[in-house]
């Protein structure tokens, strides 16, 4: 049981940090940005370049990778999305797919399509019957720190409050003298850096591939949907809820309970659980909305 909790926490940490960026950008720009998950991949490759290819210290590499990804996100906005502020959310969503495909192809052409691994050998640890690694602890701690920092930014600084104001009421924010484009750039930077950090942590835990966004896409969007799309910390809670659901379902030996033969839900059903939860939430929310309309 402790193992399930530990696994859930670690997996939630990997997903949450990417998911909160999507919620942040949804809250301000009102569209589901599929390119965000690809920023995570770009960030992972950047950190990998600094750490494994240039031999810089790991913490510096990760931070630099995140900051550089933030810059790339801002540049993407200036080059693409800033020109499309007026188009429909569906249009922006489709464009974000295009951006994701472009970034994936760019990463693949620079680094090749094959998988790479961060040359890290974290020490295995054991606590209360659960096995994990030093890296798991680092990932969880980094995510908590990142979420805490974002909370401070959004609720304790002027720029963060302005960002929330802009998300809640963009026209009013403009007429109050809040420079919307500068705030949007800040939002892309924060979201991009968090994606870069999340992607790096995810890649350290698993492996680097140009198409690893497809592995992250479902759980990340599921977490954001569970959390309520535009609710930044809801996305983090959504990641935790999803992760718990997934790990509980695949860890419980249903076979022994029912037939005496050991059998549990195969691990590949993780993604089905993610999609299932997402669909369920969307259906419930829709029913709720209809009920309210009546």
């Amino acid at each position, binding site marked *: 049981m402790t193992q399930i909790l530990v696994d859930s926490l670690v997996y939630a940490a990997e997903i949450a940090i990417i998911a909160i960026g999507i919620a942040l950008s949804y809250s301000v720009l009102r569209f589901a940005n599929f390119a965000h998950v690809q920023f995570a991949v770009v960030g992972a490759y950047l950190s990998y370049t600094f750490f494994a290819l240039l031999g810089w210290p790991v913490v510096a590499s990760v931070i630099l990778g995140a900051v550089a990804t933030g810059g790339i996100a801002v540049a993407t906005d200036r080059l693409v999305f800033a020109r499309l502020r007026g188009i429909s959310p569906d249009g922006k969503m489709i464009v974000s797919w295009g951006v994701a495909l472009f970034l994936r192809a760019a990463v693949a052409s620079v680094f090749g399509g094959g998988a790479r691994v961060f040359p890290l050998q974290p020490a295995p640890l054991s606590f209360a019957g659960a096995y994990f690694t030093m890296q798991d602890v680092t990932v969880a701690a980094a995510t908590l720190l990142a979420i805490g920092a974002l909370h401070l930014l959004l609720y304790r600084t002027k720029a963060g409050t302005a960002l929330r104001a802009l998300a809640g009421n963009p026209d009013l924010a403009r007429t109050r003298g809040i420079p919307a484009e500068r705030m949007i750039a800040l939002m892309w930077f924060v979201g991009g850096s968090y994606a870069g950090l999340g992607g790096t942590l*995810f890649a350290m835990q698993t492996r680097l591939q140009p198409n690893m966004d497809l592995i992250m896409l479902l759980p990340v969007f599921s977490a954001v949907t569970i959390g309520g799309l535009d609710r930044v910390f809801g996305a983090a809670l959504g990641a935790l809820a999803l992760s718990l659901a997934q790990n509980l379902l695949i860890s419980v030996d249903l076979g022994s309970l029912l037939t005496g033969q050991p059998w549990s839900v195969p691990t590949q059903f993780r993604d089905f659980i993610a999609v299932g939860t997402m669909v369920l939430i969307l259906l419930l929310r829709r029913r709720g909305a209809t009920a309210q309309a009546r």
Partner: protein
Amino acid sequence: MRTCPTRRIVLSMLMLTAAALPARAAEPTVPVGVIANLTGSDVPSSVDMVRGVQLAADELNAAGGVQGRKIVLITEDSEYRPQAGIEAATKLFDVNKVEAAIVFGGSSVTLPIAELARPKGKVILNTSASSAKLGGYPGTLYSTLPLDDIVGAQVGAYAAKMGVKSAAFIVPNNTFGTGLMDAAAAAFTAAGGTVVRKIAYTEGQPDYRPDLQPLQRAKPDAIISAGYGDDTRTVFKAARELGITAPWYVAYPSIFAVEDPAWLNGHMSGLDNGGLDSSTGQRIKAIYAQQFKGEPRPHYFYGYDAMMLLGRAMQKGGTDAAAIKAALPLVAKDYDGATGRIEWDDRGQRINPPMDYFAFRDGKLEPIAAPK
């Protein structure tokens, strides 16, 4: 239609070299089909296979051919695609009227060709596919390399011989993985071992810790495994992170990707297809080095043996398919091949194949002695 220019060029070149041999005289000839992927993936292995076949045909022809007729090779490209493989086989059987074809390709290519050859009564010699399903074509398909179920049984027996009492299995969830696992588990159980857990993981997952945790809870003496590429690296990483210390016994260790060599040192041993150091193997390896420079890939040896067995069967029984089928098991009995002694079961699949044993030491695979 099939109009890939590079493919056409490679194909015509190979056909020209093949046709150049009997051009000296209008002697009666025997056509033999060769299906290889000259374009598509894994071309170098395929080309080496064709070279092995060519060498055997040359040697047979130099010794007078079969039944006084020269062997003529007709090579077709399968592009490593089932559809192209079927087209190539159809052309060979219906246009060139070959009675037997030597095939290179994965199971996905070889299985449909065998399916096509069976009703036509033709003979297929398999030099590279190892799916246990290929054992389902007795009298049609004969293999010069051992199938996965045979190798799996060898791994299971090997672990038992090494004193393992309880073992857990982890393999990729595909026909290769589960076929090998089932054969290994049967052999291991037959040798007195207990299987505590069988895990087939989905390929391409980012993290296999959730898959390995049930294995860890089962506390096996050892882990028996098969797999390849990035997935195996991720499996090792997960095992290391979970603190699993049980030793690994694996099939085909050369296709595993190692994540942390220091951690795996002395932790993994396994077996791979062997016999390539036989006297014939050594001899044709030297010829290869002379002709093409460098080391031949294993398929050079499997191709050589396939052509040699086919030629001898034609010489002994006759050049029509029925005669070849009758003669193949007989000539195999006293054939000392480039891949060691070839012992066929009644399906035409190798049993007790020579195996090479390896252990992972000092960051690499090192040959070790076979267990007693």
